């Protein structure tokens, strides 16, 4: 651990500033933040063009293999209501899914206008935005992966080891009590969640996205085989989207909980303030 800045005085506990995040980590973090923002909202625009998900190679029109569908349905009293079908259950989702917007400006789309780019129905532009940022996302991901393998970030900070797994119950308990360890290194829950996002969710997102490309299915037919069909891949793409959104929500809460200014500074400048008692231990950590 390199101490990059002076101590803050004699009061206890003394604070020291360490270099926490390497430049590759910081650049890719913000690259992903921007790309995922546009990928999410343009992706929901694309979903709205056919708001149903299926299991298998094809979409069942004469048979039923749907696991999710979002519709606007005219009820018996003539009112149009948003209706969401999920795994055999039907929910009234008027106001959010299927039917949304104010009474004067009703929108009959699966996801509401505030959740899509552009806000109005425009599949062509949704695709243009989505595929541009898909290239950005993949470019950032491959650069990050290469850099993290070479500089040891992946092995040192992301991949959970035996010690992390042993520490897991204790870390979970501490988190449940809103007590967060604060020494600049990732705890076992952080490592597990970052490993899940970076090494499972992101590759799954890229591969299921490629499986939806008829060109890539000709190039790499194994894509269709490993996911069990193009429509299953589309469904997985959607589920992993939801998981990444879930991660994002927890991530933001944890940044606020752990001290937003210190966290933001560390992800922008790399510098992070920790309690001085940690400065004498630990291995080198960017």
């Amino acid at each position, binding site marked *: 651990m390199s101490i990059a800045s002076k101590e803050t005085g004699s009061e206890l*506990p003394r604070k020291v500033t360490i270099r926490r995040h390497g430049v590759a980590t910081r650049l890719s973090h913000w690259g992903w933040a921007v790309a995922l923002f546009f990928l999410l*909202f343009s992706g*929901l625009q694309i*979903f709205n*063009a*056919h708001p*149903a998900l299926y299991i298998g*190679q*094809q*979409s*069942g*029109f*004469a*048979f039923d293999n749907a696991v999710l569908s979002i519709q606007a349905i005219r009820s018996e009293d003539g009112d149009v209501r948003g209706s969401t079908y999920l795994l055999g259950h039907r929910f009234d989702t008027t106001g959010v899914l299927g039917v949304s917007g104010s009474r004067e400006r009703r929108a009959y789309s699966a996801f509401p*206008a*505030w*959740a899509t*780019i*552009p*806000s*109005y129905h*425009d*599949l*062509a*532009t949704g*695709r*243009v*935005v989505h*595929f*541009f940022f898909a*290239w950005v996302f993949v470019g950032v991901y491959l650069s990050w992966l290469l850099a993290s393998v070479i500089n040891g970030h992946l092995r040192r900070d992301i991949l959970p080891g035996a010690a992390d797994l042993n520490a897991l119950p204790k870390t979970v308990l*501490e988190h449940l009590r*809103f*007590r*967060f*360890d*604060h*020494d600049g290194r990732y705890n076992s829950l952080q490592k597990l969640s970052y490993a899940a996002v970076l090494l499972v969710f992101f590759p799954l997102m890229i591969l299921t996205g490629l499986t*939806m*490309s*008829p*060109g*890539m*299915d*000709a*190039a790499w037919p194994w894509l*269709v085989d490993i996911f069990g069909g*193009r*429509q299953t891949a*589309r469904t997985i793409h959607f589920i992993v989207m939801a998981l990444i959104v879930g991660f994002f*929500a927890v991530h*933001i*809460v944890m940044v*606020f*909980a752990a*001290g*937003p200014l210190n966290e933001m500074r560390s992800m922008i400048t790399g510098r992070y303030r920790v*309690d001085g*008692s*940690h400065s004498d231990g630990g291995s080198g950590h960017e």
Partner: protein
Amino acid sequence: MSSFVINRRGLLTAAGVAVSTLPLSGCDAFDGLLGYGQPLRDFLASANGLTYRAQRLLIPADRLAPEFSESEIRQGQRPNGSTDPTDPTYLALKDQAFAGYRLSVSGLVQRPLQLSLQELQNMPARTQITRHDCVEGWSCIAKWTGVPLSRVLDEAAVKASARYVVFHCFDSMPLGLSGSVAYYESIDLIDARHPQTILAYGLNGAPLPVANGAPLRARIERQLGYKMAKYIRAIEVVSDLAPFGRGGGGYWEDLGYDWYAGI
């Protein structure tokens, strides 16, 4: 090891602040920048050229799209786009079961052709069970029978300067507030000469129905459905797409969709 504690109210406030910013995020902030002809949209759309070149590099020219077994045909082919053209020329041909139909092959060819449906059906045929992927997101598996486009192009002897094949169609589609325009599409010569690229006249063992593009439609199995022109009237071999429509290379392309639809 020291740690810090935050109170629950602080955490809930932070969560509330984070969640309340969500509705502000998507909204309409980008609408003005993403309209047709806006520089930002044009810039983002240029990624389609990257996709096109990357896929051409990655996918061998003759690599086939996945084919399926008879048992995977579980439903009729879902019709989309035009399903019942009302253009007078088309209706007259349809009344006669397309007996008077002639496919015109012209442009950068040594021997322009006029082919009847019978003549097309007498040429060597290819039958394939493939997955149709619509740009909307759905897929449908069906069996298609037709003559490989490469056979027709060889018959017409394509000139060296040729770069694209343009399909001109009978069906009109809406354009602007009250106007309409004939559907058209275009592909490069790699897809035009691909073994699975056929001019289909049969669907699931029966003559091609009107809803699916009778008498003749294109199958371009490594691209999305909107590339696969239905109700084909004429084929034109060209070196430049600019003279057609608004220059986008197809009806949907002129409305903002990507020309290369392998993704």
